[in-house]
């Protein structure tokens, strides 16, 4: 199909692409009455829920800090609290940066480049988040045991079986997510280089 033929087909399809009048009317009424929520600048529920869980976990650690006696476990608990506060903040800030945009001020090319760059930054932040989360998992196990008053050294097969299996599962999951991020990062970078050629 040549470009001119494509143009003819496009013009033909244009005649059929019309939204039913009543749907347009309904939506315009709803939107001008400010009952429509834009999706572009909205941070998803999953991000909010994730952040709340992290903050609750941090509060749990603060409340139970006095139950931890060993200095090493106390240090782990402090680091854990810090991560539980920092991780969601990093995530929310990077997501807000990805979404905080003004679509009308840019040309199409600028919009593609801007979105591509924002996406790359967001994915890099997410990679950092995953690495920190893995570290958090490692230190959370002995800290939680200390709060419960259990000596994990006395738990049968903990260091030889339970702990390595947990870490292995998380590593597999993290590697899978990171690989997927890397692929999308490469695709985005490739797309940005393509459009500038």
């Amino acid at each position, binding site marked *: *199909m040549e470009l001119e033929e494509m143009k003819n087909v496009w013009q*033909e399809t244009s005649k059929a692409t*019309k*939204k039913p009048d009543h749907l347009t009317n309904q939506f315009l009424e709803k939107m*001008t009455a400010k009952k429509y929520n834009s999706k572009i600048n909205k941070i998803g529920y999953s991000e909010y829920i994730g952040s709340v869980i992290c903050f609750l976990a941090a509060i749990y650690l603060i409340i139970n800090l006095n139950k931890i006696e060993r200095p090493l476990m106390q240090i782990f608990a402090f680091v854990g609290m810090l991560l539980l506060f920092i991780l969601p903040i990093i995530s929310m800030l990077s997501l807000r940066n990805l979404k905080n*945009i003004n679509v009308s001020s840019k040309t199409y090319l600028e919009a593609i480049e801007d979105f*591509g760059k924002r996406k790359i930054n967001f994915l890099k932040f997410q990679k950092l988040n995953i690495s920190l989360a893995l570290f958090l998992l490692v230190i959370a196990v002995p800290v939680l045991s200390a709060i419960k008053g259990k000596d994990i050294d006395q738990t049968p097969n903990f260091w030889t079986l339970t702990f390595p299996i947990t870490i292995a599962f998380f590593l597999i999951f993290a590697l899978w997510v990171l690989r997927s991020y890397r692929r999308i990062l490469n695709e985005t970078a490739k797309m940005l280089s393509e*459009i500038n050629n």
Partner: protein
Amino acid sequence: MDKKSLFIKVIKENEGLIFKVANLYTNSLHDQEDLYQEIVFQLWKSFDSFNDRSKLSTWMYRVAMNTAIYTLKTAERKIKTISIDAETEHVANVSDNPEEHKVKALYERIKILNLLEKGIIMLYLEGKSHQEIGEIVGISTSNVGTKISRIKEKLKNYGTKK
């Protein structure tokens, strides 16, 4: 005429344009509806900033296409490929009409283009001049010509490979 009435009039007169952009950048009816609404909302939001110096359709295409970029399937975290398989499969399933097969072939070809080319080709198919395409996309008029030649070549190669 108040702002709201004027805006509704503008949207009604140009809804085909919005619908086509929503159609081209999504792969399901649900996403298409969402994008349509988001575009109208972004147009409403920036309606005050629109001035007569900028041609109405240029402003509308710019807002519509930019909105499509920023609402690209973020859930899938993809940026490069916007599948229109669903659309083309739908066309293939509903009818054996040769015209609909032509539409399917048209979408298949647009699908192989990158985001910038996709925007340029849509404006070209809409019958926009090189100058208007340049204004909307943000590249020089001569660059529009070069890009269209490359797109032609790409589409030709796609035809031969197939």
